[in-house]
């Protein structure tokens, strides 16, 4: 078998891989106070698609991911992976955070193997595959290094490969490049896009950066301020293989302006509401 699942045909792609049906999440603060974070969220992410979730800071983006990853049972509604109901089930989708969360006492290779170790997979096979992925994605030669000797971009790549090693068809990326400098960020976006085209994983990507969402996604979902609902769904009119020059398309610039206005309105309305920011 090849290292990446590159044998997916385009025809097989258009099945919903992740489906959310009327998902709502609220937290009970005390007896008579509850905070609604997500309200009636429904969407599909097709197999092998790239979906961005765009929303103002402080909306329930991370809560949404925690729910899909099974870390948080929904208050109402259902989450499906393919045909399977996965409410509250962990270990089925890959999850990557803004922080690289590499363990400082493990070498880069051992960090990439962490998930496979937890799931009790064959060590030799996993290691061979991890080395192959490292070679392919620019981490060759750093296998034995401690993470702190890697640059921010390389650490995020290692964190991504760690997620990828788990062979989950769905990957949730929660602002993975949010802590990187602008230059590194751009090259990481290009890198991720390439990996996605290669691997045909289903990616759901959280960001509050309009440009990032338009460059990466096929579909952009815009969330409102809390309680978050989907207020806009956009198909990005760009081909699968992209370059930064395309960001100058008239259509893209129009979309960009529209999305900025939408986000500004949402974060302004957020500031007039309760100021306590929980579960960003």
């Amino acid at each position, binding site marked *: 078998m090849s290292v990446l699942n590159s044998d997916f045909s385009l025809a097989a792609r258009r099945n919903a891989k992740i489906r959310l049906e009327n998902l709502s999440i609220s937290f009970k603060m005390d007896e008579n106070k509850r905070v609604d974070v997500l309200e009636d969220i429904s969407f599909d992410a097709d197999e092998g698609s790239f979906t961005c979730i765009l929303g103002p800071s402080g909306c329930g983006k991370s809560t949404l991911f*925690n729910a899909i*990853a*099974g*870390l948080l049972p929904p208050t109402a509604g259902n989450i499906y992976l393919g045909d399977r109901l996965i409410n509250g089930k*962990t*270990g*089925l*989708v890959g*999850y990557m*955070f803004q*922080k690289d*969360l590499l*363990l*400082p*006492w*493990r*070498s880069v290779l*051992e960090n990439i193997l*962490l*998930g496979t*170790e*937890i*799931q009790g997979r064959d060590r030799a096979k996993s290691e061979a595959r991890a080395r192959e992925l490292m070679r392919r994605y620019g981490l060759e030669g750093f296998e*034995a*290094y*401690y993470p*702190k*000797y890697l640059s921010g971009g390389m650490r995020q790549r290692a964190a991504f490969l760690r997620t990828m090693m*788990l062979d989950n068809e769905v990957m949730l990326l929660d602002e993975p490049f949010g802590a990187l400098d602008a230059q590194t960020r751009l090259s990481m976006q290009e890198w991720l896009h390439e990996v996605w085209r290669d691997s045909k994983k289903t990616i759901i990507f959280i960001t509050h950066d309009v440009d990032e969402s338009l460059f990466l996604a096929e579909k952009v979902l815009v969330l409102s301020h809390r309680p978050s609902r989907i207020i806009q769904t956009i198909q990005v009119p760009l081909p699968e293989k992209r370059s930064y020059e395309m960001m100058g398309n008239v259509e893209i610039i129009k979309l960009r302006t529209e999305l900025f206005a939408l986000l500004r309105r949402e974060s302004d309305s957020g500031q007039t509401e309760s100021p306590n920011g929980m579960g960003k």
Partner: protein
Amino acid sequence: MATTAESKWKTILPPLLLLAGLIAAWELASLWFNIPEYLLPRPSRIVTVAILKRAILWRHMGITLEEVLLGFLVGFIVGFGLALVMFFSTTLRRALNPIIVISQTVPVVALGPILVIWLGYNIWPKIIVVALIVFFPLTVNTFDGLIACDPDLITLLRSMGASRWQIFRKVQLPNALPFITSASKVAVTFSVIGAVVAEWIGSDRGLGAYILQTNAQIRTPEMFAAIFVTSIMGIILFFIAQAIENLLIPWQKGGKVKRSIQSYLSRS
């Protein structure tokens, strides 16, 4: 850290020179002011006596070292165990917390005589005194290290489907390791003091007992020789603990590349 030979000298030389200067000043002052030996013997005299009495000092040192090592071992195990218990059970943590603090406010020296009455004139009171001193920093630091773990790391492992035990073993325990080694360095130094004090309370053997006897007989040079040996012992134990720490947490000690046992094996 990859220090060059030159910069290594730069760090070692100043303390060495200062120490040599102080000893020389002591030697010269003793000669100059003609201080009687029973009040303050000269360093050269202490060294001479230490060499002359090496057999007896060696024997006493062996006894004290045994107390230190056994006491440290018991204190380490108890301290580590208590930290685990407190980490895994909130109820037991609440119950144990005051007792652990009280154990440190009761002067261990005062407990000594009662331990001798209970356990007899043997090694056990000394082991217990040392263990009482050792366990506290270990419990406090191990516990702190276990809870100091980044909660996002735990979320990450949970998202991978990790069990409570896997999270403990793969994240929380290694995260506590630097805390444990640092507590051990403190504890091993204190444990030498603990053993000496415990010998004062009830023993006719060991460096502490020897210090007390020579002091009573105003054999001051021998007393100083024993103090000298005690302090050397503490220093050596500290450096052993330091060396073990360097081996256990290389990622904090400037190691760039992880050298696992396997990679050593595959190379040879």
